[in-house]
């Protein structure tokens, strides 16, 4: 079995992970980077597997990948981390089987996934996340459909509209729950460097023939795939006016999402401290703004896992965490401290923009209530909202209770998809804060791995070869 001893293991090959790896290797540490994707780049710097870098954004990514390699970073692609233990032992699995890393420090840059909430019909084929639509276009050069509706909230929807336009698949319909324009203009006025990007994203949204603000999708309709949707107005308080709903026919793909959720499985498994802020995507890993260090010694976190803020803070927090992790192991060259201070200042400004943007485009307050009693909430175990509500009425509490009573969150995805919704349903029915509902604790294996691989990896770990 492959066993790799390294100074610093970076988990995640997006902007945060690549920046962390490059800065740590530049300081003189031995750095290995493990990433689930077929090629590094993550979601933001996604590389076309056939054509290579075809856009400015992916070219920026391929430059970052080349810089990491030039700095001596060993990149392990197509490898999913499925376990982590105190003492720096991380188990991953790729096409060739298990690979175990023994690292002195870890930088977790696990990124984010689309945040979703259930509504009637959301399990129909053809209904997917905006991120899935973007990956179909970027990695598969495949249009999600011929008549696409794009819905939810937040600037990422505009980015998806732009990607779809690049493969001649401009959506027919763009539905945003938010309406207010003035706060966005105010934010841009305070961050003028971001205006050009905003103008280009706005142009992508304007290219959509039917752009409706202040609306949500309340239902997807169809037999074996989505064929139509129902939409309704939503006010600033998040109340959906279903009495004024209308049906839109001829939709063959619906991409709906509410920004992103930090992927905290690994930091939670490592017992790092987490905090809740709905505007930052929900639960996120708390990391020092001065170093990127988490509450656990030797474990650093960077990028979206530390709270949704965008690619710029991801790069800066990655560089900061890499530099700090290297310095913590004694790898520091002259000028490092000056560089760290510059990164801390730049990160504070970039993060404040990202966080304010998140606060401008929250999911509507009652979004989890779009699901009715028959709607499946947990897609893995097919648990309905009615079953969760019944369990809560019988006295169970929070996400953990709902899981034990109904199996919601107990399936293959471990509640990564339904967790936000189950928490909001539990909070709404129990009259508590959403944070009080907690989250699904991750369990080993974080991702399914063949049993022989688990045995091989854990047996090798048990030998104490390197301890």
């Amino acid at each position, binding site marked *: 079995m492959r066993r790799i001893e390294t100074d610093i293991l970076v988990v995640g090959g997006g902007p945060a992970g690549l920046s962390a790896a490059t800065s740590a290797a530049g300081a003189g540490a031995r750095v290995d980077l493990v990433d*689930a994707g*077929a090629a590094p780049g993550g*979601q933001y710097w996604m590389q076309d*597997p*056939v054509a290579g870098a075809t856009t400015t954004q992916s070219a920026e990514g391929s430059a970052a990948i080349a810089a990491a390699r030039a700095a001596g970073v060993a990149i392990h692609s197509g490898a*999913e981390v499925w376990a982590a233990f105190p003492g720096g032992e991380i188990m991953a699995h790729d096409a060739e089987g298990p690979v175990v890393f023994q690292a002195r420090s870890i930088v977790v840059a696990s990124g984010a*996934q*689309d945040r979703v909430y259930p509504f009637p019909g959301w*399990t*129909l*084929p*053809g*209904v*997917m*996340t905006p*991120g*899935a*639509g973007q*990956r*179909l276009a970027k*990695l*598969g*050069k*495949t249009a*999600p459909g011929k008549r696409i509706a794009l819905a939810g909230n937040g600037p990422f929807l505009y980015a998806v509209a732009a990607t779809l336009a690049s493969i001649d698949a401009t959506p027919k319909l763009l539905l945003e729950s938010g309406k207010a324009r003035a706060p966005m203009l105010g934010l841009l006025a305070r961050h003028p460097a971001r205006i050009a990007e905003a103008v280009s994203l706005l142009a992508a949204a304007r290219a959509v023939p039917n752009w409706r603000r202040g609306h949500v999708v309340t239902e997807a309709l169809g037999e*074996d*795939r*989505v064929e139509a949707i129902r939409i309704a107005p939503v006010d600033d308080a998040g109340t959906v006016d279903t009495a004024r709903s209308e049906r839109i026919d001829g939709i063959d*793909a619906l991409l709906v999402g509410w920004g992103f959720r930090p*992927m905290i499985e690994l930091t939670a498994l490592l017992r790092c401290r987490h905090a809740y802020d709905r505007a930052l995507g929900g639960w996120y890993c708390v990391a020092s703004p001065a170093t990127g260090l988490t509450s656990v010694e030797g474990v650093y976190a960077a990028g979206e896992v530390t709270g949704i803020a965008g690619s710029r803070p991801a790069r800066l927090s990655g560089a900061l965490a890499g530099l700090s992790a290297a310095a913590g192991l004694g790898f520091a060259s002259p000028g490092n401290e000056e560089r760290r201070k510059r990164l801390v200042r730049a990160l504070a400004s970039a993060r404040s923009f990202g966080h304010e943007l998140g606060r401008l485009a929250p999911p509507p307050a009652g979004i989890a209530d779009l699901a009715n009693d028959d709607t499946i909430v947990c*897609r*893995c175990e*097919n648990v309905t909202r009615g079953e969760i509500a019944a369990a809560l009425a019988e006295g169970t509490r929070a996400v953990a209770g709902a899981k034990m009573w109904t199996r919601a969150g107990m*399936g*293959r*995805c471990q509640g*990564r*998809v339904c967790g936000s919704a189950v928490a909001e349903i539990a909070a709404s029915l129990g009259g508590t804060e959403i944070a009080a509902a907690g989250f699904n604790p991750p369990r080993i294996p974080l*991702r*399914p791995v063949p049993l022989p691989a688990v045995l091989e990896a854990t047996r090798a770990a048990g030998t104490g070869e390197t301890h």
Partner: protein
Amino acid sequence: MSEVTIFVDGEPVPAEAGRPLGALMHRLGPAMRRTEEGAPRGLFCGMGVCFDCLVTIDGVADRRACMTPIRDGMRVETGLAGGTPS
């Protein structure tokens, strides 16, 4: 990278090696499997998180189509046409 042939439920399908199988499967029709209750499911998250796009690849069940790059000669079973639901 090149044009290759894969087999979906026994039928030959031209494909581009290296691209995600999930994208090709979505083009063939968004449903990729049925739940135990018989409900169709297809690609949802597209990034390996949700496990909705499970298919059988070269005899191995429950593989995520979205995370699997296309290889020449790959044999994919969907379980849509009377196969075992996953």
